[in-house]
């Protein structure tokens, strides 16, 4: 394979021009980019909310906001981050952009449905924001919408629930599209076990999206029905059961964690072989573990409910399965590390982010096992420990994988290079800030600091201060990283076709890719990650 140093003349960015051509596009790459811009804007907005919350808690007592505003802030932060950023994030952006290319297709199976998914997503996101400002108080239930508070609160909960419901539709449509695309659009010769690992992870994710999302949709509708029509699903006074809500909510929301993290695992599985110039270690094991995570992850929802009054046997069952689901995750980590072992490791920014992903995900994973154990869970439930664990998994896992993907595929998406130097600096500040922000929250949680509390006791003051300083550092890192990417979008050096010496299909086409990806649909003759001429350092 040769490295072409001139950008393709005709590509998806200049194939048609004008705002209308973007708004009506059915090109998977343009739709992926539109998702990217929307998600980055929402991410930064929610990150600012998070930063403000940490500033509020820098010292005890009220400083920059009231308790009610704080409640609305963590609710909006959670709703935006979970439903608008993290759940669709990797699938909608990088899945849309790269899935068809990686399987040798010219587009997804249903391009118009793909565009519809985007507009449904935007509609849901606007509804979510609207719920903050339209009449009454902003929703203050937290992103979990737990009953009985969500069925009785005077705040604007119905709109927020409707927003989450609409966003779920977008997720289902994207998942459906990807399942059919992978089944029907693979290039000739691309058998299931010649498919790269990112599409595999998207396939496992898509099944969860299609099967689990309807459950949350119905559940949210039930809450609306109880609020508006007083139908007794969850209120004991009406013959309902509040624990049923938690069952239904987590039947979706725990698999949703895997919707967030599986594509992240797929992305780093692309990055490690490329920057080690070596085939992935244990391809089959990674594939099977992705499917195993998707399947077993479906049956561990009860570990969110150990203190909610579920039965002893249920607690035992869910705790056991929680430990089981750690096994396939650990298999993946072993395989990624083994891929680097003996390889020609080139520590470029994408690899740095991918390695950070492993480190942070491992901390999140191990603390997840702590929470999955019945006895510690009683102590740690609803404390800052849970918040720290969750952010290590989701931000440290999905977030860092997102940044890894951004740095890995940036040359392909835009046809230009970013500054490695600023990428390293951005990573360093971000990684440092991340750990200073979240690690103290483990300690706070063990010491008994409850989550979602506006104020705290004086003994938490120093640790809270350290954590808040970490938030400022992290936010600075984010700004450096994103500025580097934005700045070089117009001013970066022209990217070669294959700057990282990768061997998957996206590196076989020009940067940026042509409108329909391939002049001729390629025929696949060998396994992915076969390095015939590895570049050694």
């Amino acid at each position, binding site marked *: 394979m040769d490295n072409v140093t001139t950008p393709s003349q005709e590509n998806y960015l200049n194939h048609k021009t004008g705002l209308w051509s973007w708004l009506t596009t059915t090109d998977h790459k343009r739709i992926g980019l539109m998702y990217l811009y929307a998600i980055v804007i929402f991410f930064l907005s929610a990150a600012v909310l998070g930063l403000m919350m940490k500033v509020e808690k820098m010292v005890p007592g009220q400083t920059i906001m009231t308790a009610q505003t704080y409640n609305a802030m963590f609710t909006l932060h959670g709703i935006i981050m979970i439903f608008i950023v993290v759940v669709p994030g990797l699938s909608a952006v990088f899945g849309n952009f790269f899935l068809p290319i990686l399987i040798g297709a010219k587009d997804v199976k249903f391009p118009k449905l793909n565009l519809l998914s985007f507009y449904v997503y935007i509609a849901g996101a606007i509804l979510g924001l609207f719920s903050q400002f339209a009449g009454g108080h902003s929703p203050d239930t937290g992103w979990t919408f737990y009953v009985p508070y969500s069925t009785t609160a005077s705040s604007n909960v119905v709109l927020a629930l409707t927003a989450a419901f609409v966003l779920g539709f977008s997720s289902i449509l994207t998942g459906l599209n990807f399942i059919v695309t992978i089944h029907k659009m693979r290039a000739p010769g691309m058998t299931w076990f010649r498919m790269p690992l990112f599409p595999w992870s998207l396939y496992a994710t898509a099944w969860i999206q299609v099967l689990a999302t309807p459950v949350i949709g119905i559940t949210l509708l039930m809450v609306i029905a109880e609020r508006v029509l007083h139908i007794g699903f969850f209120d004991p006074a009406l013959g309902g059961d509040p624990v049923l809500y938690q069952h239904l909510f987590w039947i979706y929301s725990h698999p949703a964690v895997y919707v967030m993290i599986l594509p992240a695992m797929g992305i780093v599985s692309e990055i490690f072989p490329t920057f080690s110039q070596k085939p992935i270690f244990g391809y089959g094991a990674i594939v099977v573990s992705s499917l195993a995570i998707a399947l077993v992850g*479906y049956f561990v929802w009860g570990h969110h409910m150990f203190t909610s009054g579920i*039965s002893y*046997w249920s607690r035992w069952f869910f705790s056991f399965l929680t430990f089981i689901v750690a096994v396939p995750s650990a298999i993946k980590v072993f395989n990624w590390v083994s891929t680097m072992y003996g390889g020609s490791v080139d520590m470029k920014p994408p690899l740095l982010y991918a390695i950070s992903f492993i480190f942070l995900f491992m901390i999140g994973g191990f603390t997840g096992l702590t929470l999955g154990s019945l006895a510690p869970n009683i102590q740690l439930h609803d404390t800052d420990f849970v918040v720290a664990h969750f952010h290590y998994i989701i931000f440290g896992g999905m977030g860092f994988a997102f940044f890894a993907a951004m740095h890995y595929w940036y040359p392909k998406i835009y046809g230009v290079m970013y500054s490695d130097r600023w990428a390293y600096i951005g990573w360093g500040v971000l990684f440092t800030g991340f750990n200073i922000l979240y690690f103290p929250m483990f300690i706070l949680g063990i010491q008994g600091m409850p989550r979602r509390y506006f104020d705290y006791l004086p003994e938490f003051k120093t640790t809270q201060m350290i954590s808040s300083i970490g938030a400022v550092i992290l936010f600075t890192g984010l700004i450096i990283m994103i500025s580097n990417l934005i700045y070089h979008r117009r001013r970066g050096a022209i990217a070669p076709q294959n700057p990282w010496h990768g061997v998957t299909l996206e590196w076989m086409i020009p940067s940026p890719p042509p409108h329909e990806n391939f002049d001729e649909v390629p025929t696949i003759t060998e396994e992915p990650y076969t390095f015939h001429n590895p570049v050694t350092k």
Partner: protein
Amino acid sequence: MKEHVNHIPSYNLIIKILVALLFFTFINTVTSTEQFGTLAIVLSLVYAVVKSFLVLSYYMHLKYESRFMQYMVTGVFVLFTLVIFITFIDYSFR
């Protein structure tokens, strides 16, 4: 790849299925008015399963689809059965 053949069920069959669906709806309504306690939920779920099976098989043409498609739908059905079973087992042991 095998050519896909559209299968159009006869009006006769469609009406038979409709009658069966109405019948199960009727007995479901009757059952819900009797004092069956917990059994009422079980019966309702059984009726719902039978009706879903009929709709999926005939109205949604699953009966005429490939084995692969049938296995996929069956897998989904098994998954949801397990989820519902686990949820209600919790209620039994509380």
